[in-house]
C-alpha cells in the first residue's frame, strides 16, 4: 500500500488524521475563546481585534480554508470510523453490565464522554453551522431579533471634534458597507446574546463541546501514541482542566450579557 493509503485507508492512519485535525481545531477553539474574551475589555478592543483579523485578507482565507479542511477531515474520519464501528458490532448484549467485582463497574462501563463522541461531535457541528449563520453570514432570520447584523458597523477613526471615538461609536443603520467599514462585533454580540434562548442553546452546545474535548484531548495523545500509564493521569487532568477552562471562558460571555454585566 502506498503512504497515502496507509494514512487514509487504515484505522490507525485515520486515527492520526482525527487526532491531528482535532488538535488543530482545539487550537482554533482556544484562540477563538481568547478573542471572545476581549469583549470584557470593552467595545474598542473586540472591534479592533475583529478589524485586524479582517484586514489580513488572503491570510484569513488561508486560515479559514485550513480550518475548513480540518473540520472536513475530522468529520469525515469520524463518520467513517463510526460507521465501521457500527458494522463491527451489530449485536448489543442483553445482559446489563454487572461484573462480579461490582466495584469495577466504572472501569468496564466506559465514560459517558467516550461513549458519545460521535453524537456530541455531530451536534457541535450543527451548532457550529448555526453559529456561523448567526454571526458570520449574519442571516437575519435566525437571530431571534428584528435587527440585521449586516447593518452593524462602527467608525474606525478617532475624530475628537465630532465626539466620535474609534471602534466604539456605532454608525447609524444603513451607513457603512461590508469590506469598507469595521464591523461592530460588540453590538452584534451583546444584541445577539441578549436573546435568552439563543444564549441557552449556546451554553448547551459549548457544554457538549467541552465534554467532547474532555475525552478527545486525552484520546488524542493516545492516538498519536504519546500516552503511557505514567503520563496518563497528567494528560487526563490536562484534558479535564482545559475543557472546564474553555467552558468557563466561552460561557462567561452570554452569561455576562444576560446578567447585564456587559452592555
Amino acid at each position: 500500500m502506498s503512504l497515502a493509503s496507509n494514512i487514509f485507508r487504515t484505522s490507525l492512519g485515520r486515527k492520526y488524521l482525527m487526532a491531528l485535525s482535532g488538535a488543530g481545531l482545539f487550537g482554533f477553539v482556544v484562540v477563538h475563546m481568547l478573542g471572545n474574551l476581549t469583549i470584557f475589555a470593552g467595545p474598542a478592543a473586540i472591534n479592533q481585534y475583529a478589524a485586524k483579523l479582517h484586514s489580513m485578507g488572503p491570510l484569513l482565507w488561508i486560515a479559514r480554508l485550513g480550518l475548513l479542511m480540518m473540520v472536513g477531515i475530522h468529520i469525515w474520519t469520524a463518520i467513517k470510523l463510526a460507521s465501521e464501528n457500527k458494522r463491527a458490532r451489530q449485536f448489543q448484549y442483553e445482559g446489563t453490565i454487572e461484573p462480579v467485582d461490582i466495584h469495577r463497574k466504572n472501569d468496564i462501563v466506559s465514560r459517558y464522554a467516550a461513549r458519545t463522541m460521535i453524537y456530541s461531535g455531530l451536534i457541535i457541528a450543527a451548532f457550529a453551522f448555526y453559529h456561523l449563520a448567526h454571526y458570520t453570514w449574519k442571516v437575519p432570520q435566525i437571530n431571534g431579533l428584528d435587527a440585521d447584523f449586516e447593518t452593524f458597523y462602527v467608525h474606525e477613526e478617532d475624530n475628537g471634534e465630532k465626539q466620535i471615538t474609534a471602534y466604539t461609536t456605532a454608525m447609524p443603520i444603513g451607513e457603512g458597507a461590508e469590506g469598507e467599514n469595521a464591523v461592530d462585533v460588540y453590538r452584534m454580540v451583546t444584541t445577539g446574546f441578549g436573546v435568552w434562548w439563543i444564549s441557552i442553546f449556546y451554553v448547551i452546545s459549548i457544554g457538549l463541546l467541552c465534554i467532547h474535548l474532555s475525552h478527545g484531548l486525552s484520546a488524542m495523545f493516545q492516538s498519536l501514541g504519546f500516552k503511557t500509564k505514567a503520563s496518563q493521569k497528567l494528560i487526563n487532568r490536562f484534558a479535564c482542566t482545559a475543557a472546564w477552562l474553555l467552558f468557563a471562558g466561552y460561557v462567561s460571555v452570554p452569561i455576562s450579557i444576560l446578567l447585564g454585566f456587559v452592555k
Partner: protein
Amino acid sequence: MNLKLRVWRQDNAEEAGGFEEYEALDISPDMSFLEMLDVVNEDIIADGEEPIAFDSDCREGICGTCSMVINGVPHGGQQGTTACQLHMRHFSDGDTIVIEPWRATAFPVHRDLIVDRTSFERIQQAGGFISVRTGSVPDANATPVPKEDSDLAMDAAQCIGCGACVAACKNASAMLFVAAKVSHLSLMPQGQPERTRRAFSMVNQMDEEGFGNCTVTGSCEAVCPKEISLDFIARMNREYGRALLKKGCS
C-alpha cells in the same frame, strides 16, 4: 444454590439464535462457572436435548479458549480472571445470569456460545512473527536485552488471545490484542528488522477482518484476564506513526 440462566442458543452461523432459559439447581459455591454449565448440560442431555455448546480447554486461565459474556461482561468481570477461573461463590441464590457469546462481526458464532476467532489467526499470520529459520540463530546471550524492555515485552506477551477485549469494546475493536502482539515483538531487539513491515501488515489485516476502531473507552483493559494495559495501544499507534514516517522518508 439455585440459579436461573438465560443462555444464547444458536444452531450455526447461518441460523438466527435466541435466548433460552434454564434452571441450575443445587449449585455448589465451589464450582467454577464452567463446571456449573457442565452440570446444567448433563441435565439437558438427560432430557434428550442438545447441551449448551461452549468453548473451554485448559480451565486454568491460560489457553484463552473459554469465551462467554456473563451478565454483560466478558469473562464475568472478576479482575484478571477468565470465565473458567470464575467461581460460583460470587453469585447468590436466586440470581438470574445472562450468558451470551462474544459479539463481534469479526467473530461469527459457530454455535451457541462458541465463536470463530480465526480472524485473530490471520492477523498474526500477516506479520506476528520474527523471521528466523530453525537453527540459523546466534547464541541466546549474544543479544543482550535490557531487563526493562524484556519485562515490558513480557507484559504484552502475556496476552492469551481470548478476544475478551473485542467482546467488551463497543466498537468490537481488536486494538488491544494487536497492540499486545506488535508491542511484544517491537520491544525485543530481535524484532527490529521487521518492525516497520510488521506494523503495517498487522494493522492492515486487522482492518480487513472488520474489527472496529479504538475510541479509547478502556473497556478492553478492564476485562482483559491478563490485565494488559491500554499503554500498548498507544505504543502500537506510535509504532504505526514511526512506520509512516519511515515509509514517507524512504
